[in-house]
């Protein structure tokens, strides 16, 4: 057993995962070698139509066999039908022992539990939440789940750590030769950012669409160069679950208070000037921060250079009002965003690789000034946990947390100090997702807590009258005082989750919970 750079104990070898590389620091590991790739294809003029009759025919044509790795994107969110359709079909065809490699899973995918229990899926690499997360935490899978960030996933594929045998890409629009796009069709989802890696690197790519257009479809996100098989189905998803209604800024007073403190911090920082860029959040607090930032930007007469990440109608408004010059969209959350990306050339679709991969010639997160994030816990060293809950259950994916924190010049974690009785600030997080070296400040309803390593930020904040600064020690002590002492989480020795840092090293592991 060895300790990584954060003092977490990591075994040299984990059953079901392999040899571990220890986390050495956010920017420590440098890549070597060349990019991996998928099989070289050859398609002649004899084939002008890549369509097959149904999902099962597609699976058969793809060469998918038991033991292989299949991948999916999550742009259809909780309205997705595709993952369940494909895995159901695999089960019926007797295919088993699959490694599931989605970019994320949602509540609608809890149907997969029966396939996990029956052995159709024996390994998952990607986020696990809700009932699947609970199942995994209690030891329901033989092999540990591997959690990677949005940037770590394309890195893992490009460097050959993960090989995708068959990628199934839900395509709101497609033509018979495999050109696909996300902005048109009854199941439109906007950006298809998370699917690009799969299209580029899988041995076989299957496009599943409910909106076939004459060849060549336009506009095109991923092209015929990467798509091997096309399947038409009646519906790839439920629009009500794919896109939400207009995103409104929260009126919850606690969240508004925290958002106000966060925006005061941003305004005090050296980054609040013409050309500022920020990560676009959809959650309560990040969106409220943007609303306050908007007021402040108008007052100061400055514009933002770009908004990055998951795009909502609120940001589309900012773009239209000229308060931000560009939107770089890796995921479109609502109808306005879907419409905008399809119509406005200043609203750009970007891939997960482009967004967040640490091992390319420069991801978008590197150009980011400010990001507002959440966390279930943060510790005295500013390490953040987004994967496990206070009870030790593995319930959330990493998302873009590690990537934006590592890239942004000002990383703020904004969170109520207490969720019920559970404090978000502790002496030691239960598991680490993002290391303190890239977390600059915690903002709670009690004020602004700046990482002491950021002397420049502390100086900038002290120069502003009335900023409610709170030392980390005081925050922890207050959390202790209010919540009281905690009982330790009881676990078995078995590791059920491996949390990778963006560079593929192991930043932490999660153990199985003791049965109640």
């Amino acid at each position, binding site marked *: 057993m060895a300790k990584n750079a954060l003092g977490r104990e990591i075994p040299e070898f984990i059953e079901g995962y392999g040899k571990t590389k220890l986390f050495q620091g956010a920017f420590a590991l440098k890549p070597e070698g060349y990019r991996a790739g998928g099989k070289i294809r050859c398609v002649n003029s004899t084939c002008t139509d890549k369509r097959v009759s149904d999902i099962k025919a597609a699976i058969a044509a793809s060469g998918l066999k038991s033991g292989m790795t299949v991948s999916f994107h999550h742009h259809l969110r909780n309205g997705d039908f595709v993952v369940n359709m494909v895995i159901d079909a695999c089960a019926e065809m007797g295919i088993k022992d699959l490694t599931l490699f989605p970019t994320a899973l949602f509540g609608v995918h809890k149907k997969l539990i029966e396939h996990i229990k029956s052995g159709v899926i024996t390994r998952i690499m990607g986020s696990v939440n809700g009932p699947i997360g609970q199942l995994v935490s209690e030891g329901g899978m033989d092999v540990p789940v591997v959690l990677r960030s949005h940037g770590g996933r394309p890195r893992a594929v490009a460097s050959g750590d993960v090989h995708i045998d068959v990628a199934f890409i839900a395509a709101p629009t497609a033509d018979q030769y495999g050109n696909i796009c996300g902005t048109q069709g009854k199941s439109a989802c906007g950006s298809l950012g998370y699917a690009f890696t799969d299209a580029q690197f899988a041995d076989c790519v299957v496009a599943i669409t409910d909106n076939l257009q004459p060849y060549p479809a336009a506009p095109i996100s991923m092209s015929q160069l990467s798509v091997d098989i096309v399947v038409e189905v009646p519906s790839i998803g439920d629009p009500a679950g794919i896109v939400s209604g207009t995103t409104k800024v929260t009126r919850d007073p606690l969240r508004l208070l925290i958002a106000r403190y966060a925006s005061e911090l941003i305004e005090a920082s050296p980054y609040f000037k013409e050309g500022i860029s920020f990560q676009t959040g959809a959650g309560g607090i990040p969106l409220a921060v943007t609303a306050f930032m908007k007021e402040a930007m108008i007052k100061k007469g400055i514009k933002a250079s770009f908004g990055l990440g998951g795009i909502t109608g609120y940001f589309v408004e900012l773009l239209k009002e000229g308060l931000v010059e560009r939107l770089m969209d890796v995921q479109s959350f609502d109808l306005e965003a879907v419409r905008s990306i399809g119509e406005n050339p200043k609203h750009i679709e970007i891939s997960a690789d482009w967004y967040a991969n640490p091992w390319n010639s420069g991801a978008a997160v590197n150009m980011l000034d400010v990001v507002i994030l959440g966390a279930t816990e943060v510790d005295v060293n500013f390490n953040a946990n987004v994967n496990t809950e206070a009870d030790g259950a593995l319930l959330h994916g990493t998302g873009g947390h590690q990537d934006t924190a590592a890239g942004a010049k000002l990383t703020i974690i904004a969170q109520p100090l*207490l969720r019920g*009785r*559970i404090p978000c600030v502790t002496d030691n997080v239960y598991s680490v997702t993002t290391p303190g070296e890239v977390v600059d400040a915690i903002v709670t309803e009690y004020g602004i807590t700046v990482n002491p390593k950021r002397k420049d930020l502390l100086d900038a904040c002290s120069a502003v009258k009335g900023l409610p600064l709170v030392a980390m020690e005081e925050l922890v002590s207050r959390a202790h005082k*209010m919540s009281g002492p*905690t*009982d330790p989480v009881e676990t078995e020795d078995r590791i059920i989750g491996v949390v990778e840092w963006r560079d593929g090293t192991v930043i932490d592991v999660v153990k199985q919970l003791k049965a109640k």
Partner: protein
Amino acid sequence: MNTAQAGTLESMDCLVTVSEAPQGTGVKIQIAGSSAARFKSAMEKKTAEVIASMDVKDIEISIQDNGALDIVLGARVEAAVKRLMGGER
């Protein structure tokens, strides 16, 4: 058997149900809900403290929690016991 309740299931509150218990039962405490996983010991301690301060030796207490801090838990236990002693309102 006489029982009484106090509190709610709203955020940061808890619902405390107390029942009379035969002499010699002692103080029996059951805790369920969002804080139970990490704060059971602290909550049992606080509950026992409040019961002791009210000079009650035999009682059954069941707590359904939604994130109550000690200050709230104490108040709800006290209120439930007072209701039990003073007759149902």
